[in-house]
């Protein structure tokens, strides 16, 4: 007779950077099911936005989480600009793209670095984090901060890049590119990485579509959807880049999507620096924000981020709602975990690159 029992993982766990509680149902060492209990960092931020004016909400939304912090104010501003009929200047479109892609490189490298840590390959973890540190330096140098860039404002951006700063950005990209190429080869060939990630935590394309998953989690299962291509915003319609997909749907596929997307992001950054023309960086003066409603979408590092905004003619949102990519991707854990070993719980959870602060708001 097979005995089924449950073990708790979390809410505080060494492999989770934020709190989430999993009840793992086991048959022997094999996972039979998982139940997720959320709510440990719910802060009521959506409600709070209706008590703050639009300017304050640009600041507030940037603080929803740290790794994809730039995507929130960008998408909030896009929704507000849609209601007000504001077309941001072309240079601002490129500068928004640069801020987003810089964050993407740093965010994706953080996730694949943690993957190496979970499999016990700590020298690789430290190497990836060292590469990521170059992008952290880029953020600190260009924006004055390592996480929250404060790049956005309603009608454009709050920063510009002069010739010296653009040269600096090019030089840092040139430093990261070969290092990232080496790291990619390691993830493609190293036996320790492959033995813990190939064929583990598999999610089929049909399951990804059924659960409406987004971002690298969906693209790792062959779903060819990227907001930057499907619903272009900022300068993405002026740039050449591929949508990265993998077909196998395992942990390794998701990691490879993230590494390749970091490489694509570096290429996008170079294109932006080359194609960006002189011009204004924001619309001034700003018009009154009328009553209205809007939907805005962007491709955050973890996937599709969608904002719904309704205004009533005052200076505060009547309703602001956002759905982050992680919100959808939690449901993938159940099919990913079933049939795998209990030892793989942490690495499977990491493979959806979950953001709990974003999920709970």
């Amino acid at each position, binding site marked *: 007779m097979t005995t089924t029992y449950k073990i708790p993982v979390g809410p505080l766990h060494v492999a989770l950077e934020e709190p989430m509680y999993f009840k793992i149902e086991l048959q022997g060492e094999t996972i039979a099911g998982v139940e997720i209990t959320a709510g440990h960092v*719910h802060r009521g931020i959506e*409600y709070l936005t209706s*008590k703050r004016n639009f300017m304050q909400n640009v600041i507030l939304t940037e603080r929803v989480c740290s790794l994809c912090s730039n995507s929130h104010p960008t998408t909030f501003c896009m929704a507000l600009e849609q209601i007000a009929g504001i*077309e941001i200047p072309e240079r601002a479109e490129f500068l928004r793209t640069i801020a987003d892609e810089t964050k993407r490189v740093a965010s994706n490298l953080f996730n694949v670095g943690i993957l190496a840590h979970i499999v016990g390959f700590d020298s690789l973890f430290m190497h990836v984090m060292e590469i990521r540190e170059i992008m952290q330096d880029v953020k600190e140098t260009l924006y004055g901060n390592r996480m929250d860039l404060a790049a956005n404002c309603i009608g454009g951006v709050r920063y510009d890049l002069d010739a010296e700063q653009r040269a600096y950005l090019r030089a840092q990209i040139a430093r990261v590119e070969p290092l990232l190429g080496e790291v990619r080869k390691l993830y493609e060939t190293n036996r320790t990485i492959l033995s813990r990630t190939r064929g583990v935590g598999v999610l089929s394309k049909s399951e990804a579509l059924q659960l409406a998953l987004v971002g690298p989690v969906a693209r790792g299962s062959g779903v060819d959807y990227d907001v930057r291509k499907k619903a272009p915003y900022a300068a993405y319609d002026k740039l050449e880049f591929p949508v990265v997909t993998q077909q196998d749907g395992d942990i390794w596929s998701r990691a490879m999507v993230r590494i390749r997307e970091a490489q694509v992001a570096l290429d996008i950054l170079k294109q932006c620096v080359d194609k960006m023309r002189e011009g204004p960086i924001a619309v001034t003066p700003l018009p009154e924000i009328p009553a209205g409603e809007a*939907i805005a979408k962007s491709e955050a590092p973890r996937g599709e981020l969608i904002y719904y905004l309704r205004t*009533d003619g005052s200076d505060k949102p009547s309703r602001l709602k956002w759905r982050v990519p992680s919100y959808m991707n939690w449901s993938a854990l159940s099919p990913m975990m079933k049939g795998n070993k209990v030892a793989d719980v942490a690495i499977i959870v990491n493979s959806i690159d979950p953001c709990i602060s974003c999920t709970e708001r």
Partner: protein
Amino acid sequence: MNQELKDLLDRDLTGRVEGRCGVEWKTNRKGVTVAWCRLENGSDLLSVAELLKTSCARLSTITASLPEHARANGMHEIAYHFDFDGDTLTVQVRIPLDDEVDSLVPTFPNADWNEREFMELYSIKVRGCIDHRRLFIDEKIDPAVLDRLIPFSTLVNAASTKTLWERILGKGSEGKQ
């Protein structure tokens, strides 16, 4: 969104949406379309959802709200945002405060967390919902609690800080006397 799909949605949703214009379509300069409609009757929601599913829609998210005008009329507003390969159709329904709305989980399994969230944040009842457990807020806390509690930010805003400071200064001057 291609014209064929637009025509199909226009045709199939006509008669179920408020206003003579039917579905309102807007396409921006980058070619991204956003469409809006409000169902006259909330009970049409399930059949509309099934229709959208057959047109390859993906449920992006659901927004529940209780704006002042809706509160005055005793109605919740719920907006269902569907993705069509990058374009978005938002279908809105109004539900009386004490009424129920149909669950979309049988058609769109990812509606689950969205519905559980608006059940706890807006106290909206969902018909046919399989999972009634709280998502984020503890069971001991009343539903729709954010509409009733005084936000911490109000509690510690500049006015109360000034009041507190005046009280401290007042205490100080009492001490000197």
